[in-house]
């Protein structure tokens, strides 16, 4: 494994060097907040669409879904369908209207016709909560990946690698801002989709380009649904809950929403989503072949027992197909994926702090020095990066899969209802928005804390450990792992109740917002250089 590790590090080093050059070149014209936080709004729809795919196809999508299909068969495929169909909400209901009414953050849109300060504080809170859960999941996942790809099994060595990943990410964000980060996403998306494409053709070639032949060589129980979620009535409900959070969460993910501000017009925002839908859809079709290919050529048992567990399916398949060189390439792509996604999350969280909290709450929107916003965003990025490194080291080896589910559940419960009400409901007001954001966030976190993912799952006799995060205690009373089934309808209800119980109703401001959302009057233009 040592020779392989050097090869893996070498290929990854080339990626880092190449992207750093691109980031430095891209950052030369970065001056204003619109340059730093929204890439001067100068990306084209197709470029932004590729970058969205890069942002969205995290390590959880690539390694996680291929692995879930290899081990749990059809139930793994269900994830990718939820992740894809969700994009229709972004396309039909959110992307263009959001682009026309905001500048940098989700808070811009939510606060448009509300009392600025409380709404921006709420929007920033939920943005940072979602980004933090997501970031922690990615960083902790990096630890497991290191074990698998570089043969580093000691906690200390893994901590060093997590710190290196974090430091690189901080460098990208500091130097490149949104423009540099977007280029990293684009390069990574192209590499990821190309790599998955080559492996798919390779696998299909082994089976005469006949999907039925491939399926015939995996165990029959992998082909039908139910392996992961079909065991009990509770786990079936859990699956519905997860499916809801996946389909409604995507259009509420702040790092995805922020990408719509990097293009010059609403029409380009639409084109971005169309490109993203095609690329993400095609990629998930590839992972279907990769997952079943790994089950057939590597074997579900070997994958489960490998260091890195389920996540090792795609890398092990690469090794089985093309030996150490292909493994090195896929390993480098997997690292690049983590790096790009954490960079995207960091710039989103720092933009929300700089724009919503610093510029609009602390400075009350009266910022004299326009560069101050950029300065604050840069400092915040460093702080978030350091917190992510420390969190990643602490969470390394923990069961962190629920963090991504938590991020989606918060996005679907706290953000999406508020965004939809804001864009489409005339009567909606400050109280309603606060109720749905804080209510959605609070209920989701509460239900997760008292769910089986945190405590109380039965002890596995083989390992002597419970699958819950905490061992030896049981204080769970909520039966499901995923809170969406309860938290999403409740947040919609809270937003409704909060609204009708408050008298505030700003008809003029809603008229302005709706006219601007639909026609693009007064929308932020691209900055010219």
């Amino acid at each position, binding site marked *: 494994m040592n020779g392989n590790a050097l090869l893996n590090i070498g290929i990854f080093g080339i990626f880092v060097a190449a992207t750093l050059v691109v980031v430095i070149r891209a950052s030369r014209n970065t001056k204003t907040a619109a340059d730093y936080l929204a890439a001067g709004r100068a990306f084209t729809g197709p470029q932004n669409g590729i970058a969205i795919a890069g942002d969205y196809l995290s390590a959880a999508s690539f390694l996680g879904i291929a692995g879930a299909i290899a081990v749990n068969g059809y139930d793994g495929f269900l994830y990718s369908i939820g992740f894809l169909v969700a994009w229709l909400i972004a396309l039909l209901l959110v992307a263009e209207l959001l682009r026309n009414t905001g500048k940098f953050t989700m808070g811009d849109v939510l606060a448009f016709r509300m009392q600025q300060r409380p709404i921006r504080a709420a929007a920033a809170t939920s943005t940072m909560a979602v980004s933090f859960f997501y970031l922690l999941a990615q960083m902790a996942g990096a630890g497991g990946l290191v074990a698998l790809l570089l043969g580093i099994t000691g906690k200390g060595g893994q901590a060093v690698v997590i710190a290196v990943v974090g430091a690189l990410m901080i460098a990208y964000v500091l130097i490149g801002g949104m423009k540099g980060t977007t280029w990293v996403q684009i390069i990574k998306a192209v590499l990821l989709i190309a790599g998955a494409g080559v492996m798919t053709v390779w696998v299909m070639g082994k089976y005469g380009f006949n999907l039925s032949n491939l399926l015939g060589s995996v165990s029959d129980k992998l082909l039908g649904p139910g392996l992961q979620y079909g065991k009990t009535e509770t786990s079936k409900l859990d699956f519905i809950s997860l499916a809801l959070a996946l*389909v409604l969460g995507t259009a509420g993910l702040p790092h995805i929403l922020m990408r719509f501000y990097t293009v010059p017009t609403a029409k380009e925002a639409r084109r971005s989503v169309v490109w993203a839908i095609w690329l993400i*859809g095609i990629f998930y079709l590839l992972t279907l072949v990769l997952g079943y290919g790994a089950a057939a050529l590597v074997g579900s048992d070997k994958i489960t027992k490998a260091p890195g567990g389920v996540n090792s399916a795609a890398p092990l398949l690469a090794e089985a197909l093309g030996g150490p060189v292909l493994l090195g390439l896929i390993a480098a792509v997997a690292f690049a994926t983590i790096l790009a996604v954490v960079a995207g999350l960091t710039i989103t969280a720092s933009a929300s702090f700089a724009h919503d909290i610093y510029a609009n709450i602390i400075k009350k929107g009266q910022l004299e020095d326009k560069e101050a916003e950029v300065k604050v965003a840069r400092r915040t990025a460093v702080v978030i990066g350091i917190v992510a490194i420390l969190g990643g080291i602490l969470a390394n080896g923990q069961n962190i899969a629920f963090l991504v589910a938590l991020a989606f559940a918060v996005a679907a419960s706290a953000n999406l209802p508020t965004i939809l009400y804001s864009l489409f409901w005339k009567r909606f007001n400050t109280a309603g928005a606060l109720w749905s954001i804080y209510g959605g966030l609070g209920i989701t976190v509460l239900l997760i804390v008292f769910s089986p993912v945190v405590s109380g799952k039965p002890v596995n006799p083989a390992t002597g450990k419970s699958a819950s995060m905490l061992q030896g205690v049981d204080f769970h009373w909520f039966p499901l792992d995923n809170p969406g089934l309860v938290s999403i309808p409740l947040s919609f209800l809270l937003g409704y109740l909060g609204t009708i119980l408050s008298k505030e109703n700003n008809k003029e401001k809603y008229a302005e917002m709706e006219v601007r959302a639909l026609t693009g009057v007064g929308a932020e233009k691209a900055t010219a250089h």
Partner: protein
Amino acid sequence: MSTSEQHTPDAQGNHNWVDVQNSPDFRELRRRLRSFVFPMAGLFLAWYLLYVLLADYAHGFMSTKVLGNINVGLILGLLQFVSTFVITTLYVRHANKNLDPMAEKLRNELEGGQA
């Protein structure tokens, strides 16, 4: 940078947004948008939910093999991909043909009016 941080109607203060919102042209634009996106969103969510429920509660049906080793579940799953691509294409066509020209006309009227 045409709007202020607070979105107060300064340069564009001439507009009475409620009047614009109530104008026949704008109401028609809104009708065209909403009459497409709301039913379509309802449709794809219902179809997705049906698929999820089948995968969750109708294991036997979903595992029925149709073509070689390809079963009903896989076909329905792939149809979710197809429907997503189709709805995307339909919406783009609708927006290009029925929404964009009208939005552009209104935008030009409003932005021309302030100069």
